[in-house]
């Protein structure tokens, strides 16, 4: 059912929707509590410019936001707005030109095990079994072999892959691989989990299932999640707050508090507050074309089927 809803993009214009700012008392109360939690991640005036052959490209400009403990933040924006660049800077995989990134009040310098990362391309080590993949970070942290093994098995259990502990990554499906990648990142018990379009390569059903898994994991362990996606439904379904970026240069367009009650259930994909939020973000990301002549989405189509053809029209 999840997949069905996803496909009827914005098909409720006749419906009178509330404003996405309207919050039910329960939601308002929860978000107020969230705001009282200690700040975990702080991004201040972050800027990044790439030097390319065509001249400098400003990927990010003056990004500011705070993430609180155990919050689920989604980052969304048009393609090329610098989402990946942002998360790579948070992970310490990319340098930045201005501003600063603080985790627990300390400036981030280089990659480290306190910030786990899950990539779209799985990035499991193909030469290691599932178990050894999950053990990797634990061994890097200096855990003994037996202790690491035991701990790894707990995480593998958590993502429901005990039966596959001795398999190699190439024997797993995409969804399973991504579960291993999540287990591997979580095994290090990072402060924050950074995810760059982790479910982007999965089919609709698997993706919905993975979203449910992730919500369950998030609810049960002490982890803060920054999740990049270009899927509006995914963002609204998962996030406490959504950071909407705009492109050229990448800047914060709006930080939206999602008015959908927690814990989330698939039925909420049809709730009015869900649809209202979704529609608002859609307007932010794809503003109505200013001049119809310049709309680059328009194809220059001419009729290429004879009117007299047996199937003259598809309608």
């Amino acid at each position: 059912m999840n997949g069905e809803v996803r496909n009827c993009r914005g098909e409720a214009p006749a419906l009178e929707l509330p404003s996405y700012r309207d919050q039910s008392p329960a939601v308002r109360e929860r978000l107020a509590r969230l705001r009282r939690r200690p700040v975990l991640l702080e991004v201040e005036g972050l800027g990044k410019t790439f030097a390319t052959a065509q001249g400098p490209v400003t990927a990010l400009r003056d990004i500011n936001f705070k993430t609180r403990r155990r919050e689920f933040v989604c980052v969304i924006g048009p393609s090329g707005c610098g989402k990946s660049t942002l998360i790579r800077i948070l992970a310490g995989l990319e340098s930045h030109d201005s501003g600063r990134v603080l985790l627990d009040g300390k400036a981030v310098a280089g990659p480290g095990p306190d910030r786990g990362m899950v990539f779209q391309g799985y990035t499991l080590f193909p030469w290691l079994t599932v178990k050894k993949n999950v053990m990797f970070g634990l061994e890097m942290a200096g855990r003994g072999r037996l202790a690491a093994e035991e701990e790894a098995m707990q995480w593998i259990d958590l993502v429901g892959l005990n039966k596959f502990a001795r398999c190699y990554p190439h024997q797993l499906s995409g969804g399973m691989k991504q579960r291993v990648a999540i287990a591997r990142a979580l095994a290090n018990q990072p402060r924050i989990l950074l995810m760059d379009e982790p479910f982007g390569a999965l089919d609709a059903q698997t993706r919905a299932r993975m979203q449910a898994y992730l919500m369950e994991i998030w609810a049960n362990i002490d982890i803060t999640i920054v999740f990049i996606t270009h899927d509006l439904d995914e963002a609204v379904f998962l996030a406490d707050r959504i950071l909407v970026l705009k492109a050229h240069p990448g800047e914060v367009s709006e930080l939206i508090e999602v008015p959908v009650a927690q814990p989330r259930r698939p039925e909420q994909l049809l709730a009015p507050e869900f649809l209202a939020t979704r529609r608002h973000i859609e307007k932010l990301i794809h503003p109505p074309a200013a001049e119809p002549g310049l709309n680059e989405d328009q194809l220059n189509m001419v009729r290429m089927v004879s009117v007299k053809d047996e199937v003259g029209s598809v309608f």
Partner: protein
Amino acid sequence: MSGSPWFAVRASLPPRARRVTGMMSFVLPLLLWSLVSYVPWIWHPQVAITDPGSVTYLRPGMQLERAAFAAEVARAQQQRRAPPVGYAANPIYLPAPHEVARAFYTAFTDPPQRRSEKWLHESLWESIQVIFWGFVLSSLIGVPLGILAGTFDFVSRLFEPFVEFFRYLPAPAFGALAVAILGIYQAPKIAIIFIGTFFQQVLVVANTTRKLDPTLLEAAQTLGARNPALLLRVVIPGIVTDLFRDMRVLLGWAWTYLIVAELIGTSSGITWFITQQARYKNFDNVYAAIMMIGIIGLATDLLLAWLGRRIFPWQKTAARG
């Protein structure tokens, strides 16, 4: 279901067809060779004399061009003398398959005809030792250096320009130098194999290392891996299958340098065996020796490929029968 399975782009053949085709790749050349050798009207540009007749300069067993033979016959008939008799034959540098097979067999059973000669397998054993040591010494330095150069820009900048330059110097050019420094026995030969292999090896291994998916390194870093672990636990296992394949290719190149290596200092080994047999016009022995090299090369390669599948169980190709 359009098109035949034989020419489906990038799809593997059905198992039976695969086996048959693989066999054909050996059977077809053999068939061609047999046709040329045994069917008298295919090629056979010469005539082997059985009876010289009245022609004084001919001897039984001698071979001469067909045109020359025809001229002699015509002349003899014109002068009403006995014409020479012979049968169509191929030049002696192309012996028939059965002759080569016999030479191949007798190489192991009959002692060499001349005192100075060595048994085929003795020569071969010398060659294998030269190759082995040259290749092992080169790999001991070349592989670690290549991996470091592929991983650290510093090492790459420091060594690669020189290696790149040295690569263009032909290994044989160092023959005289190697003899002057290392004497006339095995050492200079090993040195030539080393020079021929080493510089290519560094560059090939460095490139293979660079092809490692960088996101694997990034993932490892976000899991807390730092420098020595990054190299030992990610880079090396990440490239080891490709490295193994590179080594198989490089080993093939080492064999090519053998030809040069064995001609310097005191000539020895399989190349020397071949040169000498060719000088005595024992071309069946020449072919037998060449084939021996081929068989050893192919056998080593198959062995390594099989070993690779055993020691790298994560390779997808391992699943294929």
